[in-house]
Protein backbone atom coordinates (compact mmCIF):
# COMPACT_ATOMS: atom_id res chain seq x y z
CA UNK A 1 0.00 0.00 0.00
CA UNK A 2 1.25 3.44 -0.89
CA UNK A 3 2.24 5.77 1.91
CA UNK A 4 -0.44 8.28 2.94
CA UNK A 5 -0.04 11.77 1.52
CA UNK A 6 0.65 13.27 4.93
CA UNK A 7 1.70 11.64 8.13
CA UNK A 8 2.31 13.58 11.32
CA UNK A 9 3.89 11.55 14.10
CA UNK A 10 4.13 12.54 17.72
CA UNK A 11 4.44 16.25 16.99
CA UNK A 12 5.62 18.40 19.88
CA UNK A 13 6.19 22.13 19.91
CA UNK A 14 7.20 24.35 22.77
CA UNK A 15 7.84 28.08 22.84
CA UNK A 16 10.18 28.48 25.78
CA UNK A 17 8.45 26.80 28.68
CA UNK A 18 5.04 26.93 26.98
CA UNK A 19 4.13 23.55 25.53
CA UNK A 20 1.76 24.21 22.62
CA UNK A 21 1.69 20.75 21.04
CA UNK A 22 1.92 17.68 23.23
CA UNK A 23 2.35 14.82 20.81
CA UNK A 24 -0.10 15.16 17.95
CA UNK A 25 -0.39 12.47 15.28
CA UNK A 26 -2.53 12.39 12.17
CA UNK A 27 -2.62 11.01 8.66
CA UNK A 28 -4.23 12.32 5.52
CA UNK A 29 -4.88 10.16 2.49
CA UNK A 30 -4.77 11.58 -1.04
CA UNK A 31 -7.90 13.50 -1.94
CA UNK A 32 -9.07 13.65 1.65
CA UNK A 33 -9.97 16.73 3.64
CA UNK A 34 -9.40 17.04 7.35
CA UNK A 35 -10.85 19.90 9.35
CA UNK A 36 -9.16 20.89 12.59
CA UNK A 37 -11.36 22.65 15.10
CA UNK A 38 -10.89 23.73 18.68
CA UNK A 39 -10.74 26.74 20.96
CA UNK A 40 -8.28 29.58 20.36
CA UNK A 41 -4.81 28.79 21.63
CA UNK A 42 -5.33 25.02 21.47
CA UNK A 43 -2.39 24.65 19.07
CA UNK A 44 -4.25 24.00 15.83
CA UNK A 45 -2.54 26.79 13.89
CA UNK A 46 0.83 25.81 15.31
CA UNK A 47 0.25 22.25 14.14
CA UNK A 48 -0.48 23.52 10.63
CA UNK A 49 2.63 25.72 10.64
CA UNK A 50 4.74 22.78 11.77
CA UNK A 51 3.54 20.66 8.85
CA UNK A 52 5.42 22.87 6.37
CA UNK A 53 8.10 23.79 8.87
CA UNK A 54 7.24 27.48 9.14
CA UNK A 55 7.66 26.47 12.76
CA UNK A 56 10.32 23.90 13.47
CA UNK A 57 8.81 21.11 15.56
CA UNK A 58 10.47 20.49 18.91
CA UNK A 59 9.99 16.78 18.43
CA UNK A 60 8.21 14.45 16.06
CA UNK A 61 8.21 13.66 12.37
CA UNK A 62 6.35 14.85 9.30
CA UNK A 63 6.15 12.75 6.14
CA UNK A 64 4.83 14.11 2.86
CA UNK A 65 4.19 11.50 0.20
CA UNK A 66 6.27 9.06 2.21
CA UNK A 67 9.22 11.41 2.32
CA UNK A 68 10.56 12.88 5.55
CA UNK A 69 9.75 16.61 5.63
CA UNK A 70 12.15 19.23 6.92
CA UNK A 71 14.77 16.78 8.08
CA UNK A 72 17.08 14.27 6.47
CA UNK A 73 17.76 10.81 7.69
CA UNK A 74 21.18 9.48 6.78
CA UNK A 75 23.13 6.66 8.43
CA UNK A 76 20.71 6.53 11.33
CA UNK A 77 21.26 10.21 12.12
CA UNK A 78 18.77 13.02 11.55
CA UNK A 79 19.84 16.48 10.48
CA UNK A 80 17.79 19.56 9.63
CA UNK A 81 17.47 20.30 5.93
CA UNK A 82 19.28 23.20 4.35
CA UNK A 83 17.08 26.19 3.47
CA UNK A 84 17.29 25.18 -0.17
CA UNK A 85 16.13 21.61 0.43
CA UNK A 86 13.38 22.86 2.68
CA UNK A 87 12.21 25.40 0.08
CA UNK A 88 12.01 22.65 -2.53
CA UNK A 89 9.74 20.62 -0.26
CA UNK A 90 7.60 23.57 0.74
CA UNK A 91 6.92 24.23 -2.93
CA UNK A 92 4.69 21.12 -2.86
CA UNK A 93 2.56 22.44 -0.01
CA UNK A 94 0.26 25.40 -0.59
CA UNK A 95 -0.64 27.50 2.41
CA UNK A 96 -3.41 30.04 2.91
CA UNK A 97 -3.05 32.34 5.89
CA UNK A 98 -5.58 34.03 8.10
CA UNK A 99 -4.04 37.40 7.22
CA UNK A 100 -3.79 36.69 3.43
CA UNK A 101 -0.27 38.14 3.19
CA UNK A 102 -0.47 39.10 -0.44
CA UNK A 103 2.61 41.00 -1.53
CA UNK A 104 1.55 44.64 -1.84
CA UNK A 105 4.13 45.61 -4.46
CA UNK A 106 2.79 43.08 -6.97
CA UNK A 107 -0.49 42.96 -8.88
CA UNK A 108 -2.86 40.07 -8.27
CA UNK A 109 -1.52 38.33 -11.37
CA UNK A 110 2.09 38.80 -10.32
CA UNK A 111 1.33 37.62 -6.80
CA UNK A 112 0.20 34.35 -8.34
CA UNK A 113 2.88 34.18 -11.05
CA UNK A 114 5.99 34.98 -9.05
CA UNK A 115 6.48 31.59 -7.42
CA UNK A 116 6.08 29.67 -10.70
CA UNK A 117 8.68 32.03 -12.19
CA UNK A 118 11.18 32.25 -9.36
CA UNK A 119 10.75 28.84 -7.79
CA UNK A 120 9.90 26.61 -10.72
CA UNK A 121 11.72 28.60 -13.38
CA UNK A 122 8.78 29.15 -15.73
CA UNK A 123 9.13 31.95 -18.24
CA UNK A 124 6.97 35.01 -17.84
CA UNK A 125 4.34 34.18 -20.45
CA UNK A 126 3.88 30.66 -19.15
CA UNK A 127 3.64 31.82 -15.54
CA UNK A 128 1.13 34.53 -16.44
CA UNK A 129 -1.01 32.01 -18.31
CA UNK A 130 -0.95 29.73 -15.27
CA UNK A 131 -1.78 32.69 -13.01
CA UNK A 132 -4.75 33.63 -15.18
CA UNK A 133 -6.05 30.06 -15.03
CA UNK A 134 -5.79 30.04 -11.25
CA UNK A 135 -7.36 33.49 -10.89
CA UNK A 136 -10.27 32.24 -13.00
CA UNK A 137 -10.66 29.29 -10.64
CA UNK A 138 -11.16 31.66 -7.71
CA UNK A 139 -13.37 33.98 -9.79
CA UNK A 140 -10.88 36.84 -9.71
CA UNK A 141 -9.99 37.21 -13.39
CA UNK A 142 -11.53 40.68 -13.48
CA UNK A 143 -9.06 41.96 -10.87
CA UNK A 144 -5.86 40.44 -12.26
CA UNK A 145 -4.19 43.83 -12.78
CA UNK A 146 -5.17 45.34 -9.44
CA UNK A 147 -2.81 45.74 -6.52
CA UNK A 148 -3.87 44.01 -3.28
CA UNK A 149 -4.67 47.30 -1.54
CA UNK A 150 -7.48 47.87 -4.02
CA UNK A 151 -9.13 44.54 -3.20
CA UNK A 152 -11.57 43.64 -0.44
CA UNK A 153 -10.51 41.10 2.18
CA UNK A 154 -12.47 38.34 0.50
CA UNK A 155 -10.93 39.16 -2.86
CA UNK A 156 -7.45 39.23 -1.34
CA UNK A 157 -7.99 35.84 0.22
CA UNK A 158 -9.18 34.40 -3.07
CA UNK A 159 -6.04 35.71 -4.80
CA UNK A 160 -4.01 34.14 -1.98
CA UNK A 161 -5.75 30.84 -2.70
CA UNK A 162 -4.89 31.22 -6.39
CA UNK A 163 -1.28 31.85 -5.38
CA UNK A 164 -1.23 28.59 -3.44
CA UNK A 165 -2.90 26.75 -6.35
CA UNK A 166 -0.26 28.03 -8.77
CA UNK A 167 2.27 25.94 -6.87
CA UNK A 168 0.30 22.93 -8.14
CA UNK A 169 0.67 21.57 -4.64
CA UNK A 170 0.14 18.05 -3.40
CA UNK A 171 -1.43 19.40 -0.25
CA UNK A 172 -3.25 22.58 0.71
CA UNK A 173 -3.12 24.01 4.22
CA UNK A 174 -5.75 26.55 5.26
CA UNK A 175 -5.04 28.45 8.46
CA UNK A 176 -8.35 30.01 9.54
CA UNK A 177 -8.87 31.45 6.06
CA UNK A 178 -12.04 33.38 6.92
CA UNK A 179 -11.31 34.52 10.47
CA UNK A 180 -10.03 37.95 9.42
CA UNK A 181 -12.93 38.65 7.08
CA UNK A 182 -16.01 40.79 7.52
CA UNK A 183 -19.00 38.46 7.88
CA UNK A 184 -20.45 39.34 4.48
CA UNK A 185 -17.20 38.33 2.75
CA UNK A 186 -16.85 34.91 4.36
CA UNK A 187 -19.22 33.21 1.93
CA UNK A 188 -17.26 33.91 -1.26
CA UNK A 189 -14.09 32.43 0.23
CA UNK A 190 -15.83 29.37 1.63
CA UNK A 191 -17.45 28.81 -1.76
CA UNK A 192 -14.03 28.72 -3.44
CA UNK A 193 -12.64 26.32 -0.84
CA UNK A 194 -15.72 24.15 -1.28
CA UNK A 195 -15.13 24.02 -5.03
CA UNK A 196 -11.51 22.97 -4.47
CA UNK A 197 -12.61 20.27 -2.07
CA UNK A 198 -15.07 18.99 -4.68
CA UNK A 199 -12.19 18.75 -7.16
CA UNK A 200 -10.70 16.15 -4.88
CA UNK A 201 -7.78 18.18 -3.60
CA UNK A 202 -6.07 17.08 -0.41
CA UNK A 203 -6.38 19.61 2.36
CA UNK A 204 -6.02 20.30 6.03
CA UNK A 205 -8.31 23.09 7.11
CA UNK A 206 -8.06 24.88 10.43
CA UNK A 207 -11.32 26.73 10.90
CA UNK A 208 -13.90 28.18 13.22
CA UNK A 209 -16.65 27.66 10.63
CA UNK A 210 -18.14 24.53 12.17
CA UNK A 211 -20.97 24.10 9.68
CA UNK A 212 -18.57 24.52 6.81
CA UNK A 213 -16.20 21.98 8.33
CA UNK A 214 -19.06 19.53 8.57
CA UNK A 215 -19.99 20.12 4.94
CA UNK A 216 -16.61 19.94 3.37
CA UNK A 217 -14.40 17.69 5.50
CA UNK A 218 -14.40 13.93 5.61
CA UNK A 219 -12.57 13.83 8.92
CA UNK A 220 -12.60 16.19 11.88
CA UNK A 221 -10.01 16.64 14.60
CA UNK A 222 -11.04 18.41 17.75
CA UNK A 223 -8.01 19.80 19.51
CA UNK A 224 -7.77 21.08 23.05
CA UNK A 225 -4.69 22.17 24.92
CA UNK A 226 -2.15 20.80 22.47
CA UNK A 227 -3.74 17.38 22.12
CA UNK A 228 -6.29 15.76 19.88
CA UNK A 229 -9.28 15.27 22.16
CA UNK A 230 -11.56 13.60 19.70
CA UNK A 231 -11.56 12.70 16.02
CA UNK A 232 -13.78 10.99 13.50
CA UNK A 233 -16.19 11.66 10.66
CA UNK A 234 -17.87 15.08 10.90
CA UNK A 235 -21.28 13.67 11.70
CA UNK A 236 -19.81 11.91 14.70
CA UNK A 237 -17.49 14.62 16.09
CA UNK A 238 -19.74 17.56 15.32
CA UNK A 239 -23.09 15.78 15.34
CA UNK A 240 -22.63 13.50 18.33
CA UNK A 241 -19.49 14.48 20.21
CA UNK A 242 -18.42 11.99 22.85
CA UNK A 243 -16.21 14.20 24.98
CA UNK A 244 -17.49 16.86 27.29
CA UNK A 245 -14.83 19.32 26.09
CA UNK A 246 -15.95 18.91 22.49
CA UNK A 247 -19.56 19.39 23.49
CA UNK A 248 -18.80 22.49 25.53
CA UNK A 249 -16.84 24.00 22.65
CA UNK A 250 -19.51 23.27 20.07
CA UNK A 251 -22.27 24.56 22.31
CA UNK A 252 -20.43 27.79 22.75
CA UNK A 253 -19.48 28.33 19.13
CA UNK A 254 -22.82 27.29 17.60
CA UNK A 255 -24.74 29.66 19.83
CA UNK A 256 -23.23 32.65 18.08
Amino acid at each position, binding site marked *: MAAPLLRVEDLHKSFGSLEVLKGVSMTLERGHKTAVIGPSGCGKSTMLRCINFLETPSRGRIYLDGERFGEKEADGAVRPMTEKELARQRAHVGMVFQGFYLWPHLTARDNVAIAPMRVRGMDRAEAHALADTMLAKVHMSHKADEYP*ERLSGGQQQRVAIARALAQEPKLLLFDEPTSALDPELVGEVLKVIHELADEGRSMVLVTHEIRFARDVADWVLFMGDGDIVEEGPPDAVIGQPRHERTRAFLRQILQH
Partner: protein
Amino acid sequence: MLEQIYDLGGPLLLGAVTTVQITLAALVVAIVLGLGLALLKLSRLRLVHWLIDIYVEVFRNTPVLAQLFLIYFGLAYVGFKVASFPAAVIGLGLNGGAILTEVFRAGFAAIHHGQREAALAVGMTPWESMRHIILPQTWRITLPPLGNYAIALLKDTAVVSAIAAPEIMFYARNLVTSTFETTLVYVLAALLYFALSFPLARLVEHFERRQRAWL
Protein backbone atom coordinates in the same frame (compact mmCIF):
# COMPACT_ATOMS: atom_id res chain seq x y z
CA MET B 1 29.87 93.18 -11.34
CA LEU B 2 29.05 90.64 -14.05
CA GLU B 3 32.69 90.27 -14.87
CA GLN B 4 33.44 89.77 -11.23
CA ILE B 5 30.81 87.04 -10.94
CA TYR B 6 32.28 85.44 -14.04
CA ASP B 7 35.77 85.43 -12.49
CA LEU B 8 34.57 84.03 -9.19
CA GLY B 9 32.18 81.54 -10.81
CA GLY B 10 34.88 79.57 -12.59
CA PRO B 11 36.63 78.23 -9.48
CA LEU B 12 33.30 77.75 -7.68
CA LEU B 13 31.95 75.63 -10.54
CA LEU B 14 35.13 73.58 -10.41
CA GLY B 15 34.42 73.04 -6.73
CA ALA B 16 30.83 72.07 -7.56
CA VAL B 17 32.12 69.20 -9.69
CA THR B 18 34.07 67.88 -6.71
CA THR B 19 31.07 68.41 -4.43
CA VAL B 20 28.93 66.26 -6.71
CA GLN B 21 31.64 63.60 -6.97
CA ILE B 22 32.12 63.40 -3.20
CA THR B 23 28.33 63.31 -2.65
CA LEU B 24 27.81 60.47 -5.10
CA ALA B 25 30.79 58.43 -3.90
CA ALA B 26 29.88 58.86 -0.21
CA LEU B 27 26.24 58.04 -0.98
CA VAL B 28 27.26 54.76 -2.62
CA VAL B 29 29.51 53.85 0.32
CA ALA B 30 26.77 54.77 2.81
CA ILE B 31 24.04 52.79 1.02
CA VAL B 32 26.18 49.68 0.54
CA LEU B 33 27.35 49.84 4.14
CA GLY B 34 23.93 50.67 5.57
CA LEU B 35 22.07 48.00 3.62
CA GLY B 36 24.77 45.40 4.24
CA LEU B 37 24.86 46.00 7.98
CA ALA B 38 21.06 46.14 8.26
CA LEU B 39 20.92 42.76 6.50
CA LEU B 40 23.57 41.38 8.85
CA LYS B 41 21.50 42.62 11.77
CA LEU B 42 18.69 40.35 10.65
CA SER B 43 20.89 37.41 11.58
CA ARG B 44 20.82 36.09 15.10
CA LEU B 45 24.53 36.29 15.73
CA ARG B 46 24.87 38.28 18.91
CA LEU B 47 28.48 39.31 18.37
CA VAL B 48 27.58 40.73 14.94
CA HIS B 49 24.74 42.78 16.45
CA TRP B 50 27.03 44.05 19.10
CA LEU B 51 29.76 45.16 16.69
CA ILE B 52 27.28 46.89 14.39
CA ASP B 53 25.66 48.68 17.32
CA ILE B 54 29.05 49.99 18.44
CA TYR B 55 29.81 51.25 14.92
CA VAL B 56 26.42 52.94 14.58
CA GLU B 57 26.51 54.59 17.99
CA VAL B 58 30.09 55.83 17.61
CA PHE B 59 29.47 57.41 14.22
CA ARG B 60 26.03 58.76 15.04
CA ASN B 61 27.13 60.39 18.26
CA THR B 62 30.32 62.13 17.22
CA PRO B 63 30.68 65.11 14.87
CA VAL B 64 31.52 64.39 11.23
CA LEU B 65 34.25 66.98 11.46
CA ALA B 66 35.99 65.03 14.23
CA GLN B 67 35.66 61.84 12.18
CA LEU B 68 37.18 63.53 9.13
CA PHE B 69 40.08 64.93 11.16
CA LEU B 70 40.77 61.49 12.61
CA ILE B 71 40.82 59.92 9.16
CA TYR B 72 42.82 62.68 7.49
CA PHE B 73 45.20 63.86 10.22
CA GLY B 74 44.95 61.02 12.72
CA LEU B 75 45.81 58.29 10.25
CA ALA B 76 48.63 60.39 8.77
CA TYR B 77 50.03 60.74 12.29
CA VAL B 78 50.37 56.97 12.59
CA GLY B 79 51.97 56.81 9.15
CA PHE B 80 48.91 56.13 7.04
CA LYS B 81 48.52 58.97 4.58
CA VAL B 82 45.10 59.32 2.97
CA ALA B 83 44.54 62.02 0.33
CA SER B 84 41.79 64.54 1.04
CA PHE B 85 39.31 63.29 -1.57
CA PRO B 86 39.29 59.62 -0.46
CA ALA B 87 39.41 60.74 3.17
CA ALA B 88 36.28 62.83 2.55
CA VAL B 89 34.49 59.93 0.86
CA ILE B 90 35.48 57.46 3.59
CA GLY B 91 34.53 59.87 6.39
CA LEU B 92 31.15 60.89 4.98
CA GLY B 93 30.52 57.31 3.82
CA LEU B 94 31.20 55.80 7.25
CA ASN B 95 29.06 58.46 8.87
CA GLY B 96 26.23 57.92 6.40
CA GLY B 97 26.56 54.16 6.75
CA ALA B 98 25.68 54.49 10.43
CA ILE B 99 22.65 56.62 9.64
CA LEU B 100 21.42 54.38 6.84
CA THR B 101 21.94 51.17 8.85
CA GLU B 102 19.20 52.49 11.11
CA VAL B 103 17.06 53.64 8.17
CA PHE B 104 17.18 50.20 6.50
CA ARG B 105 16.76 48.36 9.80
CA ALA B 106 13.60 50.36 10.46
CA GLY B 107 12.51 49.62 6.89
CA PHE B 108 12.84 45.86 7.41
CA ALA B 109 11.12 46.10 10.77
CA ALA B 110 8.14 47.85 9.17
CA ILE B 111 7.39 44.83 6.97
CA HIS B 112 4.99 42.31 8.48
CA HIS B 113 6.57 38.91 9.18
CA GLY B 114 3.72 37.33 7.21
CA GLN B 115 5.24 38.72 4.01
CA ARG B 116 8.29 36.56 4.49
CA GLU B 117 6.28 33.56 5.66
CA ALA B 118 4.11 33.68 2.56
CA ALA B 119 7.27 33.76 0.43
CA LEU B 120 8.76 30.77 2.25
CA ALA B 121 5.44 28.94 1.98
CA VAL B 122 5.43 29.13 -1.83
CA GLY B 123 8.91 27.61 -1.88
CA MET B 124 11.23 30.59 -1.95
CA THR B 125 14.50 30.34 -0.05
CA PRO B 126 15.14 33.04 2.58
CA TRP B 127 17.41 34.80 0.09
CA GLU B 128 14.80 34.69 -2.70
CA SER B 129 12.20 36.02 -0.30
CA MET B 130 14.56 38.87 0.60
CA ARG B 131 15.25 39.68 -3.02
CA HIS B 132 11.79 39.40 -4.54
CA ILE B 133 9.50 40.22 -1.62
CA ILE B 134 11.23 42.09 1.22
CA LEU B 135 13.75 44.35 -0.53
CA PRO B 136 11.30 45.84 -3.06
CA GLN B 137 9.03 46.78 -0.18
CA THR B 138 11.89 48.07 1.96
CA TRP B 139 12.96 50.25 -0.93
CA ARG B 140 9.55 51.93 -0.99
CA ILE B 141 9.56 52.52 2.76
CA THR B 142 13.12 53.84 2.90
CA LEU B 143 13.01 56.04 -0.17
CA PRO B 144 11.86 59.22 1.62
CA PRO B 145 14.46 59.05 4.43
CA LEU B 146 17.07 57.97 1.88
CA GLY B 147 16.29 61.00 -0.29
CA ASN B 148 16.41 63.33 2.68
CA TYR B 149 19.74 61.87 3.65
CA ALA B 150 21.11 62.44 0.11
CA ILE B 151 20.00 66.08 0.19
CA ALA B 152 21.54 66.62 3.64
CA LEU B 153 24.72 64.91 2.48
CA LEU B 154 25.06 67.20 -0.53
CA LYS B 155 25.08 70.22 1.75
CA ASP B 156 27.15 68.57 4.46
CA THR B 157 29.98 68.00 2.01
CA ALA B 158 30.86 71.63 2.80
CA VAL B 159 32.49 70.31 5.95
CA VAL B 160 35.21 68.46 4.01
CA SER B 161 36.75 71.78 2.99
CA ALA B 162 38.27 71.51 6.47
CA ILE B 163 40.51 68.69 5.24
CA ALA B 164 41.30 70.58 2.04
CA ALA B 165 39.07 68.63 -0.32
CA PRO B 166 38.66 71.04 -3.25
CA GLU B 167 34.88 71.45 -3.21
CA ILE B 168 32.70 74.57 -3.30
CA MET B 169 33.42 75.92 0.16
CA PHE B 170 37.14 75.23 -0.18
CA TYR B 171 37.30 77.43 -3.30
CA ALA B 172 34.98 79.98 -1.72
CA ARG B 173 37.28 80.49 1.24
CA ASN B 174 40.31 80.80 -1.02
CA LEU B 175 38.48 83.36 -3.16
CA VAL B 176 37.53 85.39 -0.09
CA THR B 177 41.14 85.44 1.02
CA SER B 178 42.36 86.62 -2.38
CA THR B 179 39.53 89.04 -3.37
CA PHE B 180 37.96 90.13 -0.02
CA GLU B 181 34.52 89.84 -1.73
CA THR B 182 33.12 87.97 1.27
CA THR B 183 29.40 88.51 0.69
CA LEU B 184 29.40 88.01 -3.06
CA VAL B 185 31.46 84.80 -2.85
CA TYR B 186 29.31 83.20 -0.17
CA VAL B 187 26.08 84.23 -1.89
CA LEU B 188 27.35 82.63 -5.08
CA ALA B 189 28.41 79.50 -3.15
CA ALA B 190 24.99 79.27 -1.49
CA LEU B 191 23.24 79.69 -4.85
CA LEU B 192 25.35 76.89 -6.24
CA TYR B 193 24.32 74.53 -3.43
CA PHE B 194 20.71 75.51 -3.97
CA ALA B 195 20.98 74.85 -7.70
CA LEU B 196 22.25 71.34 -6.95
CA SER B 197 19.98 70.55 -4.03
CA PHE B 198 16.64 71.81 -5.36
CA PRO B 199 16.49 69.52 -8.42
CA LEU B 200 17.59 66.61 -6.24
CA ALA B 201 14.70 67.27 -3.88
CA ARG B 202 12.27 67.34 -6.82
CA LEU B 203 13.75 64.08 -8.11
CA VAL B 204 13.23 62.39 -4.74
CA GLU B 205 9.67 63.68 -4.69
CA HIS B 206 9.07 62.27 -8.15
CA PHE B 207 10.35 58.81 -7.18
CA GLU B 208 8.28 58.86 -4.04
CA ARG B 209 5.14 59.59 -6.04
CA ARG B 210 5.88 56.84 -8.52
CA GLN B 211 6.52 54.29 -5.79
CA ARG B 212 3.23 55.22 -4.21
CA ALA B 213 1.36 54.24 -7.35
CA TRP B 214 0.61 50.80 -5.96
CA LEU B 215 -0.66 52.02 -2.64
